[in-house]
């Protein structure tokens, strides 16, 4: 008898448990609403609030679509691959431009051409859109971008008697030389391809042609040589040598007068060093102008069950209304040409960041991008640690390394 009772109890408990689950997972109005999962990475509270507000606006306009935000923690690219492998990827998600070639080539994201207005697309900065285009098809709409610029300490400039930010390589070197004194370096330069590639562009070099590395040229060597020479001559130091985590810290802790970073410096400096009076200037000109631009787009999973609705989400979040919110928040530079003006009007001192996008190339180097960046960084390290005789040799070896 006892046994029977306990069995019954167990049964009731188990059934209750399942009943509980099914009750929880299905809200009453599930049938009338389409849920679109939106995958993104965690960012600062201000940026999270911006996205939440954009989502709220969207849900007001589209009452039949509900956006379920999924914040992906840890290594985003790794987590995303695991989600794809287990078929649990979100319908819409952030995609960094450097990862786009792989995701586009593997056809895991859906071309958006069917869903978007060709005329409206022209409003996006062309270089950004190119990063998400493959074989003439558009796979993602960029939401914002960041170019690299010189962030400099105005007080140090004044003290050294420099009246304007350097505009050429020569001026940059002279300024860095003058600013290097009393334990402060003229510049902080990290040995990172994502920071010295602009100098290669400025020397007229190309990094890749499709998926093929083509940076074993005299132009690329010239750019790399100039960058490393600033370090070797002692006008600049790496963040590690300065005892800081990254370039931003070097400017914030007044250990360097100039750093090359992107718009993410603005909220960082506000937090970390409100007392540092800094300015933003365009990267100097070499033989020509050149810069890198970092961008993130909204893309759609090719397996999404609600493609039409997912497309609406993407279009809204990269649309004028949402990007106006981005522009006004000042947290990132909106990806639309029509919004760039709004941004620079509100934040005139940040105009250089917007001006450079015209000649910038996106941070994307084909399917072997990760390998290319790795071996470029290594080439710079080799040159800096004097493991090779010159930049040309280092770059030749780097190209050979990428099979």
């Amino acid at each position, binding site marked *: 008898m006892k046994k029977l009772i306990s069995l019954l109890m167990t049964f009731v408990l188990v059934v209750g448990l399942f009943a509980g689950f099914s009750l929880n997972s299905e809200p009453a109005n599930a049938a009338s609403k389409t849920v679109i999962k939106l995958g993104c990475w965690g960012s600062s509270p201000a940026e999270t609030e911006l996205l939440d507000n954009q989502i709220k606006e969207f849900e007001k306009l589209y009452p039949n679509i509900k956006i379920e935000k999924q914040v992906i923690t840890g*290594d985003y*690219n*790794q987590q995303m*691959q*695991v989600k*794809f*492998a287990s078929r649990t990827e979100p319908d819409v998600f952030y995609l960094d431009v450097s990862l786009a070639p*792989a*995701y586009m080539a*593997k*056809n*895991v994201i859906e071309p958006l051409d069917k869903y978007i207005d060709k005329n409206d697309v022209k409003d996006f900065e062309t270089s950004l859109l190119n990063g998400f285009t493959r074989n003439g098809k558009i796979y993602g709409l960029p939401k914002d971008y960041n170019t690299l610029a010189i962030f400099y300490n105005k007080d140090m400039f004044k003290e050294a008697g420099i009246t304007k930010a350097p505009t050429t390589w020569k001026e940059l070197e002279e300024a860095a030389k003058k600013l290097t004194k009393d334990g402060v370096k003229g510049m902080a330069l990290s*040995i990172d391809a994502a920071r010295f590639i602009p100098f290669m562009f400025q020397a007229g070099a190309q990094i890749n042609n499709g998926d093929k590395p083509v940076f074993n040229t005299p132009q690329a060597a010239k750019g790399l040589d100039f960058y490393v020479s600033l370090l070797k001559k002692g006008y600049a130091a*790496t963040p*590690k*040598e*300065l*005892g*800081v*985590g990254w370039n931003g810290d070097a400017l914030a802790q007044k250990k360097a007068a100039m750093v090359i970073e992107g718009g993410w410096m603005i909220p960082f400096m506000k937090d970390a060093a409100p007392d540092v009076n800094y300015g933003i200037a365009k990267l100097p000109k070499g033989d020509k102008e050149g810069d890198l631009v970092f961008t993130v787009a909204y893309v759609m999973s*090719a*397996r999404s069950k609600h493609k039409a609705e997912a497309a609406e989400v993407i279009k809204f979040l990269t649309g004028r209304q949402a990007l106006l919110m981005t522009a006004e928040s000042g947290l990132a530079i909106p990806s639309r040409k029509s919004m760039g003006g709004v941004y620079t009007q509100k934040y005139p001192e940040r105009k250089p960041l917007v001006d450079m996008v015209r000649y910038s190339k996106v941070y994307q180097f084909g399917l072997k991008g*990760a*390998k290319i960046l*790795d071996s470029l*960084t*290594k080439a710079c*390290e*080799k040159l800096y*640690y004097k*493991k090779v005789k010159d930049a040309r040799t280092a770059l030749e070896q780097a190209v050979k*390394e990428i099979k």
Partner: protein
Amino acid sequence: MNLQLETKNNFKKNVMTMKKLKRRERVDGWLFVTPFVISAAVFFIGPLLVAFMLSFKEYSYLDMISMFEAPWVGFANYLNAFQDSTFLKALLNTSIYSLGVVPIQLTIALLLALIVDSNLKGKTFFRVAYYIPTVTSTVAVSVMFMFIFKTDGILNRILAIFNLPAYNWFGDTRLALPSIMMMAIWSSVGLYMVIFLAGLQDIPTSLYEAARIDGANKLQEVLYITIPLLKPTIFFNLVVSLIGTFQVFDQAYVVSNGTGGPLDSTMTVVLYLYNTGFRDFQMGYASAIAFILFAIIFILTLIQRKFFGEETEF
């Protein structure tokens, strides 16, 4: 007569229940281990077999086909690995790391265990103090060591007191690996100390008493009693420490920001495996690297067993 019959019946009944019990026991036994068997099959044996299969295929998680449909490439992944200069560099780094860390770490751990095992005042405090790094997360430890090894960090300031030059520890190709070796030794020495301590407590005191009567000094006690009788523990620690060091990942990842730099000087096999699998989208190749690492660890463990593995009798 009646009584006899009853006993006989009883006996028969008992035999029956015994048999039933035996069978029941076997079933129960299996029932008890089922959760483990199932979880081991799902989370350990299954993935292992799949990974082995993947090591002969070309596959990435972004392929829209299942891994069973991915194309076979035979031994290409394995052959590639031995021509891949970065992998060979990673293997060399890992070997140096292991050869450096294991003996130093175990020697220090044994010394600490001997000290903590003696009648020292406040030995409980020391036991806890040495064990704390083991329960601290490696990432936290790495971040802490980055502060110590910074160019204007504590270590360089101490060096400055003795008029020694400052080094860029994590930024120098020759110093980056030794730096993370120091970190590893510091952070896991406590774990091995505790295991040694358990081993020390297994050695009967009578042996020491006998030795003392024979006139042995402290050093002789350690050399001729403690170490020989501690052999199984030493073997265990060696194996665990060797496996752990060959799988080093987090320290290298944190210190180099995932790149294994500067100039691949902190590139370890597992870091390289992670980068090939997830960053270069070559899961098949990454699986092959994992199995090469497995083979290396397996062979090394067999060799160790040859030297340290025999049973010790008290």
